[in-house]
């Protein structure tokens, strides 16, 4: 019953690399992707830092063989990541099995919608972007680019836990036999909409984010796309596929406390972690490493830290947040961190929580600050979002 779901492919693009290998190289060399914003002209450019993908839309369109200004950034990033994931999984004929695509996004094509908001009325030059406003359009464009037709393709938007929920739904669908193979993850680009929205909430740091630090000043927004291929045991054994790791547990709960803030004691987070452990059929002491949500906002890190203590008591395992590398990539955060978790399992490493100096006064939790080698079998990864959405995923080396 507690059998994990096989992960057979991964693909990603983020501020620290255009593919999985580049991301891993940055992680183990401690190289951050957070910097001043370059590609979006905003009045806040001197007050914020972001995790921006260095490639421009034009670069991406050239790489993918699309005409200029044909796509918004969200599908461009998504197509890069999805193609890499399919390649690693060795999938040539995507229609061979009942295959689905589930993507998480918060902005969809908002970058173009805001750019041409008034231009749409002036002339028809950018009308190709009108339909991009709805989030599902970005997912359908990814489906088109990978040749996925006549299939289940959907989009999830649960704020910063979107990709976790995409992975969870995919795993549930495979376990239940609804589909044989699912590409799950998410894609989110930076936009003025998001930058200004988070600015009004006053949770953006003007310097490098410092998760779980007493003097943390808020988050750095980021952008990324990350997809994983999940396949049924039947495909894995029939094609003798190499399994990278397994989705072993998942839990989704709502904090039901506030539209944007987490409860002081992390009720939703505790429930999500407990559910995930139960689905995985493991006890807290079997977790070797926690990839924390750790956004570096005062509220999240306190709430998550307390939730960790409630679930793991006095034995909180090694934990770190990788947000100082990538920024907070919103809908994709859990996708990025799912891939980092699989890499951690494959390479037996724990990533450093960069920028940490001073432990928080509320508890004695200290994240790992240096790259650490450790035999890793089981990782728990958290993602929490607006609307009280809390999700936890558990990845394992063995099924």
């Amino acid at each position, binding site marked *: 019953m507690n059998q994990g779901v096989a992960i057979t492919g991964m693909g990603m693009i983020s501020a620290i690399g255009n593919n999985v290998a580049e991301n891993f190289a940055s992680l183990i060399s401690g190289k951050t992707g957070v910097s001043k914003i370059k590609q979006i002209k905003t009045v806040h450019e001197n007050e914020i830092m972001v995790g921006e993908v260095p490639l421009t839309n034009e670069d991406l369109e050239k790489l993918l063989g699309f005409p200029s200004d044909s796509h918004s950034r969200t599908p461009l990033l998504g197509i890069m990541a999805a193609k890499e994931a399919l390649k690693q999984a060795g999938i040539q004929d995507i229609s061979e099995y009942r295959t689905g695509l589930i993507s998480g996004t918060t902005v969809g094509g908002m970058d173009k919608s805001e750019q041409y*908001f008034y231009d749409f009325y002036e002339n028809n030059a950018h*009308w190709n972007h009108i339909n991009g406003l709805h989030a599902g359009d970005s997912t359908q464009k990814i489906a088109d680019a990978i040749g996925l037709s006549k299939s*289940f393709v959907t989009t999830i*938007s649960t704020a910063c836990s979107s990709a976790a929920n995409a992975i969870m739904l995919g795993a549930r*669908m495979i376990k239940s036999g609804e589909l044989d193979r699912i590409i799950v993850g998410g894609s989110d680009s930076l936009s003025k909409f998001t930058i200004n929205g988070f600015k009004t909430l006053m949770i953006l740091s003007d310097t490098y984010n410092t998760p779980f630090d007493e003097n943390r000043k808020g988050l750095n927004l980021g952008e990324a796309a990350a997809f994983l291929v999940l396949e049924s045991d039947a495909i894995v054994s029939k094609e003798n596929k190499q399994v990278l790791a397994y989705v072993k547990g998942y839990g989704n709960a709502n904090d*039901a406390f506030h539209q944007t803030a987490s409860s002081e004691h992390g009720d939703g987070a505790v429930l999500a972690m407990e559910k995930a452990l139960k689905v995985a059929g493991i006890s807290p002491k079997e977790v070797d490493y926690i990839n924390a949500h750790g956004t570096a906002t005062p509220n999240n890190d306190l709430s998550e830290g307390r939730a960790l203590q409630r679930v793991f008591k006095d034995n909180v395992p090694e934990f770190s947040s990788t947000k100082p590398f990538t920024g907070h990539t919103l809908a994709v955060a859990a996708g990025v961190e799912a891939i980092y978790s699989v890499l951690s399992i494959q390479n037996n490493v724990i990533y450093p929580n960069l920028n940490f100096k001073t432990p928080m006064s509320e508890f004695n939790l200290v994240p790992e600050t240096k790259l650490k080698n450790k035999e890793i079998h089981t990782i728990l990864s958290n993602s929490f979002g607006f609307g009280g*959405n809390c999700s936890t995923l558990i990845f394992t080396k063995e099924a």
Partner: protein
Amino acid sequence: MKKEVFINSVGSVSVQKTFDNSGFLDEVVNYEGTSVKAVDPNYKEYIPPAAARRMAKGIKMSAVSSQNAMIEAGLENVDAIIVGTGLGCLGDSEKFVRDLLDNDEQYLTPTRFIQSSHNTVAGSIALDMGCKGYNFTYVHANISFESSLWDAKLQLANEEAETILVGAVDEVVDHHIKTHQFIDHIKKEPVAMENVLRSGTKGIVFGEGSHFFVLSNQKQESTYSKLVDLGVYNTLPTTEVSETISDFLKRNDLSTKDLDGVILGNNGDVEHDSIYNDLGTSLFKEIPQFVYKHLSRRV
């Protein structure tokens, strides 16, 4: 053994007076236009006036339809809340972007941004109900609700949950209407309700609303029907629609002969409706056919 799934209640706010479950379309509201707003229930009966003041229309409509669905099912809480929405509380997103552009990214306030988050309706229902269970939001255009339904069915069939509140919501917003008229997704000329289905023009008449249902793997007195199966396809050549439906019926050991009727999605878009017209004169020729989008305008 997978459990059966039942639809135990309905709550609906639409362009018709559907918010009161004591009747259904006894009196039809006429309209003429390219978009139609929902018939407003008395929101004060459902939402404290102070809270309603800055509340997005999508949240308000959903407060009414979700509460009505919960009352009819005789429940105060559920195991999960799943919402589908094409565009979320779009009115607030549009205003936030407009303010951002008009004021050079200055003087913005958080409320509109918060309500722009697609999951704001699911979050707000959970908050009101104190529901700490599974909470999901699907945002895939016209299959947002179907995705929600599939998810709910999966959980109920596999006994991961016993009762789930499932719904969908979308708002009519000016900028969206105008821009989609440019690309012929929405009709350019106003049409009266009785003429929509034979308008002979491209595009649809756009509507808004919020509809919630309690699904359960337990049958009860209020049960409307069983949800047996569903199929979702991101693309499908028109030449394969009929065969796909036949295969879908076959996988449930059914044929069209077993059906008492079929509900079709005719929406008055001259190019789109040919799919339904073809089905109506071939596969479904022998059985009663129902259409509804000229009344509801939900797309």
